[in-house]
């Protein structure tokens, strides 16, 4: 993922993340879940399950492009740069798998 594709991915994910953030915060302001039952019901509703899944896809893709840009700008030594990029990619993949497990478990309950 590089060049125009990365640029485009960063912008498309940004628009979704901004929309989700507003929706999430406004929902919390209107009616914050006061109990586990409220929270769990809300998060496992089909709308929220889909929106949250898309949120994490957008978040982790956005983080990849942004952190990659930061590393490419500030880390000059090639070996260190490559190592950090690999660690970043592995870290984001682990987080993606972790989220998938949480969302699948949540959906099953």
């Amino acid at each position: 993922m590089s060049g125009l594709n990365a640029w485009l991915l960063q912008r498309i994910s940004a628009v979704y993340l901004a929309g989700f953030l507003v929706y999430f915060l406004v929902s919390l302001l209107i009616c914050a879940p006061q109990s586990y039952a409220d929270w769990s019901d809300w998060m496992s509703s089909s709308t929220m399950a889909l929106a949250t899944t898309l949120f994490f896809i957008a978040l982790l893709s956005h983080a990849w492009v942004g952190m990659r840009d930061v590393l490419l700008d500030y880390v000059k030594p090639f070996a260190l740069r490559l190592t950090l990029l690999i660690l970043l990619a592995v870290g984001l993949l682990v987080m993606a798998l972790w989220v998938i497990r949480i969302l699948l478990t949540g959906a099953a309950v």
Partner: protein
Amino acid sequence: MKNKKPDTRPVNLNLLKIRQPITAIASIGHRISGVLLFLSIPFVIWMLERSLQGPQGFADVSALFDNSLIKILTLLLAWSAAHHFFAGIRFLLLDIEIGIDLATARTSAMVVNVLGVIGVLIAMVMIL
């Protein structure tokens, strides 16, 4: 194109004395807040997992916010999220050539920097 003469121009890299343009402050703030938000992701995922594990997990995560250190970190993330959100919208508008003249770009950078601070103030009122 190397100049043979020794470079006698004054060098001042004292970070406490350099005044960055307001647009540069909005921009570096966007980077710093982005890195902070990235670092927060594992904690957010962990809180999501714990809060969905059952009533006890939900209570544990809610109780976290009584801790002063967590409150301070939450405020730092509130600034990060607010600044990153507004500065991000500013960059998206600049991408589609809205507000690219210097005067408007300076004003919007100032607005973004202020909105980031307002975000923290709102968060302070809500959690302290």
